[in-house]
């Protein structure tokens, strides 16, 4: 038998003989490695694994470089020029969001979908598995009524009908011919939930195909052998030429090609990195704990090691044997950890808000298992090396003397105290991180969102299609009838319609051109978030009117065009001066009516409760009618479900083909906005709790062992008159140095590490004294508790027995 195998066998036998030690060490490792495996699966999905497109490293998003370095949307004509005049892209495509209503089996359902230029799927390298891909002739105004279905929609609504190709599907835009079905593993870009795809079908002379109509996301595949830098240089050249040719259409700026991976995973990167760091700390603490256990165990084996040394074992041989034991322990711990990882990963996916951190893309696979093997190997060295070196040093050169125990005990006790201090300091960092997130989330939930988040229900309505056209009197008539019905429902105080609600996930903004103050190049004029609302919207939402008047019933299609502006808009565009009476053109600087500012309202947070408000404007729905609407119902005290059902019934009576979706209270919208941070907070809190538990166990082990070693001393002290209180104080004060050192090092480390969390915090400084104090105080309390049991036991030491044991 090879010496390695022999060591492994002996190690396994030794571990089986100490079931208590083995169980605690394995549980600690399984938790540490399992938690890391679960988070690594997310890290892999977000940060490491290439996107599931062929040669995805060559895929980039292209557009004007935004303030965050990402690529902005482009107008269709810009896309056409870019596609035709670039020299570095093999192929390009553009996409936009689309939310049609699918009408099948008498059921109207709004489905998330995308309009894409015809080469979209070939750029991604994902041809349909059934039917065919789009062709150039599909991507024209007259040919755009063809449809590709996602595998999920095909199965859910069409029973996986293999003869679906060629069949007609009714969307409220009209009839569409299905031309194919996408592969089941297709992962969307831009709108990841998209279930149906139709061609953009624009022509350059269409009004919404203009250069400043920036509602398309451009995607490109860089030609083989071309670097990202070269592509960017080519884009800058192209952008300069465009600006020279169309000075009125393009503001100053540059273009950017941003790797698609960064675009897709951008939001998730920082939180995932924070979580991976945190869970790494948990593994370090687990390793320190196991190292502590191994050190304790080695004390009882000093005689065995001395015998082995006396029989000729070199120090290297002893270290190897002890490390083999750690390896066996960590290998089994790793195997258990993989199981724990699968369980935790499932729990993560189940508990996380949908689509968060790309958790839906994460999975436990061979890569995660390889990570587990690596983590187990690292744990073997981290947890096993120090005890092996210490124990082997004690075993060598001391012969079979009884002094071995005392001296080995002394040196290992020092090592154990250091390890306990390290555990404590790591736990402080985790706890401080969790405390910072708790403070962030609590501030976020209390953030001044600018509207009353209580007692308001919002429901999405889609009046898209031939029956309703934007600005169509039929649409306005439907709105009036619907509002009348909803207002008549029991408990309803106010009801209004709007094109979008704050925190609702829409992003409707338009150019804001003030008469007489427009920039030389109108493209340089600012933009503002655009809310097209019916009267009563402000009161229904609880948005304060600060000056002038709101939108009222007499603001009709044929009355004077008006608008309201937000406080931020007043500050940004008028320097805080009174804007009432000013005239503004919205959207196209050269056409459309001049609107008179008639009121100033409070700011609302639109995209994210954590982001400061941008300038906003409110137009009468009667003068700027939307077909995608949000119904806002203020009905304090009413049950959300009952009210939603009543509204659904009212809509169905008016038009059964109008789908209702995205039903949520404004409170839920605020909560949803805090969900990513809340989820990170929960995970950090869970890691911090695990760290606390492990650190408490570690301290308990050290103190308990120290008390055992000092039993004689305690016996003497009691014989000399020490009271139980004196003994408790002795034990507690002996741990003070470890706790003090651990806390001090932890606070310093927390201050350094918390800076890395800046991007996930909200209105809390990484050096927040309250969070740090809270973390340190909690840990001090836990450390005290971990001292308390051994201290109590020490106080009960019977002096006679303790002295007799000598």
């Amino acid at each position, binding site marked *: 038998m090879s010496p390695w195998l022999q060591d492994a066998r002996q190690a396994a036998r030794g571990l089986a003989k100490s079931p208590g030690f083995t169980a605690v060490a394995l549980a600690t490792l399984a938790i540490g490695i399992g938690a890391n495996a679960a988070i690594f699966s997310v890290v892999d999905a977000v940060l490491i694994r290439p996107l599931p497109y062929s040669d995805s490293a060559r895929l980039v998003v292209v557009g004007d470089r935004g303030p965050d370095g990402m690529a902005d949307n482009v107008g269709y004509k810009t896309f056409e020029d870019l596609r035709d005049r670039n020299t570095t892209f093999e192929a390009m495509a553009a996409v936009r969001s689309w939310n049609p209503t699918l009408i099948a089996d008498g059921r109207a359902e709004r489905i998330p979908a995308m309009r894409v230029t015809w080469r979209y799927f070939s750029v991604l390298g994902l041809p349909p598995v059934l039917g065919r891909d789009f062709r150039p002739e599909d991507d024209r105004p007259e040919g755009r009524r063809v449809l590709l279905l996602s595998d999920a929609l095909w199965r859910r609504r069409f029973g996986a009908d293999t003869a679906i190709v060629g069949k007609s599907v009714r969307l409220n835009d009209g009839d569409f011919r299905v031309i194919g079905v996408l592969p089941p593993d297709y992962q969307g870009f831009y709108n990841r939930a998209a279930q149906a795809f139709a061609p953009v079908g624009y022509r350059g002379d269409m009004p919404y195909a203009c250069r400043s109509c920036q509602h398309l996301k451009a995607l490109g595949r860089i030609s083989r052998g071309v670097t990202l830098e070269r592509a960017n240089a080519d884009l800058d050249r192209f952008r300069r030429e465009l600006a020279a040719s169309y000075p009125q259409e393009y503001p100053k700026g540059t273009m950017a090609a941003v790797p698609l991976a960064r675009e897709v995973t951008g939001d998730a990167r920082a939180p995932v990195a924070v979580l991976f760091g945190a869970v790494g700390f948990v593994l370090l603490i687990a390793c320190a704990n196991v190292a502590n256990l191994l050190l304790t165990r080695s004390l009882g084996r000093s005689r065995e090691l001395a015998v082995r040394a006396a029989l000729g074992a070199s120090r290297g041989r002893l270290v190897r044997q002890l490390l083999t034991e750690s390896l066996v322990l960590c290998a089994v711990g790793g195997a258990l950890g993989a199981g724990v990882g699968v369980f935790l990963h499932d729990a993560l996916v189940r508990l996380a808000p949908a689509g968060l951190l790309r958790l839906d893309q994460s999975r436990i696979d061979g890569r995660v298992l390889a990570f587990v093997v690596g983590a187990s190997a690292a744990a073997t060295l981290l947890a096993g090396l120090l005890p092996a070196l210490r124990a082997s040093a004690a075993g060598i050169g001391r012969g079979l003397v009884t002094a071995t125990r005392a001296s080995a005990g002394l040196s290992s006790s020092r090592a154990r105290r250091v390890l306990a201090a390290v555990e404590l300091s790591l736990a402080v960092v985790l706890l401080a991180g969790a405390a910072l997130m708790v403070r962030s989330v609590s501030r976020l939930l209390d953030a001044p969102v600018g509207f009353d988040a209580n007692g308001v229900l919002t429901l999405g309505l889609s009046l898209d299609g031939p029956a309703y056209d934007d600005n169509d009197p039929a649409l306005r008539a439907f709105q009036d009838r619907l509002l009348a019905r909803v207002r008549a429902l029991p408990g309803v105080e106010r009801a209004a319609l709007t094109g979008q609600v704050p925190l609702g996930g829409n992003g409707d903004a338009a150019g804001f051109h003030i008469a007489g103050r427009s920039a030389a190049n109108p493209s340089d004029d600012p933009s503002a978030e655009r809310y097209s609302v019916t009267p009563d919207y402000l009161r229904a939402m609880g948005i304060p009117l600060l000056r002038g008047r709101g939108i009222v019933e007499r603001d009709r299609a044929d009355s004077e065009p008006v608008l309201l502006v937000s406080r931020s808009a007043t500050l940004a565009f008028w320097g805080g001066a009174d804007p009432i009476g000013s005239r503004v053109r919205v959207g196209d600087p050269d056409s459309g009516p001049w609107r008179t500012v008639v009121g100033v309202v409070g700011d609302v947070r639109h995209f994210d409760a954590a982001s400061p408000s941008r300038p906003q404007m409110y137009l009468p729905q009667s003068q700027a009618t939307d077909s995608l609407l949000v119904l806002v119902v203020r009905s304090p005290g009413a049950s959300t479900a009952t009210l939603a059902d009543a509204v659904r019934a009212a809509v169905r009576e008016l038009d059964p083909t109008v789908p209702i979706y995205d039903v949520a209270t404004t409170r839920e919208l605020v909560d949803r906005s805090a969900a990513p941070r809340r989820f990170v907070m929960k995970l950090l809190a869970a890691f911090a709790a695990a760290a606390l538990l492990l650190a408490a166990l570690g301290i308990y082990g050290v103190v308990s062992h120290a008390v055992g070693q000092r039993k*004689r*001393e305690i*016996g*003497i*002290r*009691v*014989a*000399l*008159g*020490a*009271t*139980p209180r*004196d003994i408790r104080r002795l034990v507690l004060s002996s741990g003070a140095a470890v706790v003090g050192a651990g806390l001090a090092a932890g606070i310093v480390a927390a201050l350094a590490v918390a800076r890395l969390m800046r991007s996930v915090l909200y209105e809390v400084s990484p050096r927040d004294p309250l969070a740090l104090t809270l973390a340190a105080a909690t840990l001090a309390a836990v450390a005290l508790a971990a001292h308390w049991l051994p201290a109590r036991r020490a106080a009960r030491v*019977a*002096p*006679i027995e303790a*002295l*007799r044991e*000598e």
Partner: protein
Amino acid sequence: MIQLNNIEKSIASRAGQTFLLRRIGLTIEPGEFVTIMGPSGAGKSTLLSILGMLDHDWTGEYRLLDHEVQRLKPKERIELNKKYVGFVFQQYHLLDNLTVAENLDIPLSYRNVKGSERAAIVADTLDRFQIVGKKDLFPSQLSGGQQQLVGVARALIAKPKLLLADEPTGNLHSDQGRDIMRLFQKLNGQGTTIVQVTHSEENARYGHRIVRLRDGWIAGEEIVAERVGAGSAS
């Protein structure tokens, strides 16, 4: 000083109750120097522990000066121990990580003596036992006799009325043992009541009376020297 009446101590064992002490009745007068002798397992150390109130698990009546020990709570017994009792151990039981001076300071620290007073008392004691030169040494740097000298000094530093010594010379060679016994005799002459446990007939001769134990029973008593100004009691 001490009056024991019907003291019994037993422990539970596989065979049922095992008695370590049976119906012990003993009176020790103030200023007496009593030696407890007997073979191993006779109950000598157990009796000493009960006298020193380090062992609370016994039955019977124990009167120390005016205190009915059997009626006292453990905490009150500890207070009584602190007030009246000093201990000397066979293995010296000095605290390894403390210097000689710090070892002497320990009993005072448990008796709430002020820091300045403690320093003075420690200095006096070092002087009295002629170990000033050793005050900064650690126990491992002392010979066995020197360690036991410190052990005795430590036992006496809080001025106990009763000195209990468990085999005080057991680990010392004969010359060192004789020095310690002479010291005990001198202390006894100065008024300290001493109860020692020993196997040595020679050491027993330094005291006034020998109480012999066998299997937990008092097997007999023997007067070895007449005390000045007092009679022995049974």
